[in-house]
């Protein structure tokens, strides 16, 4: 079993190991961290979000999700390390502490638990959910084409066998619906950050169109500063831009939905590497990846704290 404090090295963990680790984190930092079930997955696994809060009622909040595409293992690994980092630095890091005194952080480490389990048991390259598609022998929907933002538009497939199948309708996937419901009923999220791998990119909306968002200048500048912070640790270079131009047109994506829902500071990370290991990033790169990414995340969080709206 992992020690919670001072994670010296990580391997890519199983779903149940991550869940039991969450419990140990909550037990170690009971005044800061709680675990909330936001609903179940298609295969009835609980979806747990870690909430970092020093109190208040419905404070402005920041959303971070990892692992929505199950084969991108460095993403939930980064989520886990980041959860530990937030908990252990609270109280000693002035900036983080001031942030948590006025805002809450929600961290969904496994946004697609069924897919993640499947990558361990059956197919390391599985990306989608594991829902049954009626009329097809192919399972699963791409959970990042399933959001109600340009749904069914470019860059999403109509075929259930495709890895970018958008699903029968927006929010058809329970994993997506659970998050949508939480965000909507909370009503006070100020930032929405989704973490993927690979390609080393930091992107802002839109994917469903290449047209600029109204806040493009601000998001671009914030993204560039965050990327520079990331690079400062080990020299890892990230490209910054909107999804549609940087990577591809892609409709039905989560950060397009969050932006169009009024959450201005919406970003997507594509973590290491640029294709050498790709999805199979070795475990010895988890901590370097998470550490450098934290510098970018922290920069964004501080900016969100300092720019209330």
């Amino acid at each position, binding site marked *: 079993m992992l020690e919670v404090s001072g994670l010296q090295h990580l*391997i890519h963990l199983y779903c149940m190991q991550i869940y039991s680790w969450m419990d140990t984190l909550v037990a170690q930092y009971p005044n800061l961290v709680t675990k909330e079930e936001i609903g179940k997955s298609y295969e009835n696994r609980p979806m747990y979000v870690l909430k970092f809060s020093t109190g208040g009622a419905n404070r402005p909040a920041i959303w971070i999700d990892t692992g929505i595409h199950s084969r991108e293992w460095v993403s939930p690994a980064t989520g886990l390390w980041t959860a530990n980092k937030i908990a252990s630095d609270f109280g000693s890091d002035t900036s983080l502490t001031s942030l948590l005194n006025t805002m809450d952080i929600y961290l969904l480490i496994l946004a697609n638990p069924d897919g993640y389990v499947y990558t361990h048991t059956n197919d*390391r*390259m599985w990306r989608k959910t594991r829902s049954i598609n009626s009329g097809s022998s192919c399972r699963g929907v791409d959970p990042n084409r399933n959001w109600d933002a340009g749904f069914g538009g470019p860059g999403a497939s109509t075929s259930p066998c495709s890895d970018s199948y958008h699903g029968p309708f927006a929010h058809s996937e329970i994993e997506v619906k659970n998050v949508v419901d939480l965000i909507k009923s909370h009503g006070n999220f100020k930032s929405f950050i989704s973490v993927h791998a690979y390609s080393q990119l930091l992107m802002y909306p839109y994917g469903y169109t290449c047209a600029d968002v109204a806040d493009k200048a601000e998001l671009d500048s914030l993204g560039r500063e965050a990327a520079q912070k990331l690079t400062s640790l080990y020299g890892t270079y990230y490209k910054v831009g909107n999804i549609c131009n940087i990577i591809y047109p892609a409709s039905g994506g989560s950060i397009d939905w969050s932006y169009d829902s009024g959450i201005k500071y919406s970003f997507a990370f594509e973590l290491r590497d640029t294709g*050498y290991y790709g999805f199979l*990033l070795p475990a010895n790169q988890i901590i370097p990846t998470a550490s450098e990414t934290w510098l970018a995340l922290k920069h964004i969080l501080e900016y969100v704290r300092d720019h209330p709206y």
Partner: protein
Amino acid sequence: MGFRGFIVLVVLMGTGGSPTAAVSLKDESAHPNFVTREQKDPTVEEGRGDVMATGELNPSHFPARRAAKVVQHYLNTRYGSPYRLFGLEDVHSATAEDVADTGRRYHLQISAHEIISNRTQKCSADVFFPRGEPTQPPEVKASCEELLQNTTAQEEALYQRYKEGHSLLSAQYIPDSQGHIEPDVMPFWHLSIVASSFIMLHESTENTLYNMAQVAQITQLETERKELKFDSHMLLHDMVSQEILHWKLLFTWSPAEGIKVQQMQQIPKPNH
């Protein structure tokens, strides 16, 4: 230094119903339309998904990056070995122009990173994507500034070990799920990436971005010939469609002959 540049592909048509690819790759692009022309429209246009940009391209945007990835695959087919492997480091500048109705040509300034020696060098390249059905592979011309590191001794040692050895290489899932590779399998991982680059180069279009995802299986076969011979099952990842493509690849390698693809065949991904 003395690296054999000309790589001949000999393709044997497979039996059975699965589609096979007849491959004939030109070493240097000799397409008749590969003539320098004045650019008609130097204005910048942003990529809008289905309308591909022309003129000066934003080097951070996907049209330039996809073309640059093709150059990476080309460099690996041309110069790659178990001890020499290129990655795309960066795109510095790019232009694109339509070439009558025959296709689109990109001109790129990139940096290529030789992963094993950890050296980066600048390259200038042309990539021509032909239009029409059936889709033809792109044609690439590239020149890079630095001489290649000499890897002959390492290649010879590897070759001798597996030519004379008592057991034939047989391995699967490289890297494994945790991203781990046994040290003495590393050269075969690199060799597999290079061999897969022939597939990736052949299959590349303006709407693909290929990386090798994993070697599902690689088996060394007995052969009377000088070269080492391998049967393999490669998993390729196309970033644009997000699909994992399964390919069977039969190839040979020796330090003298380099890599020769004997058969490449896409196979359907398992349905689940």
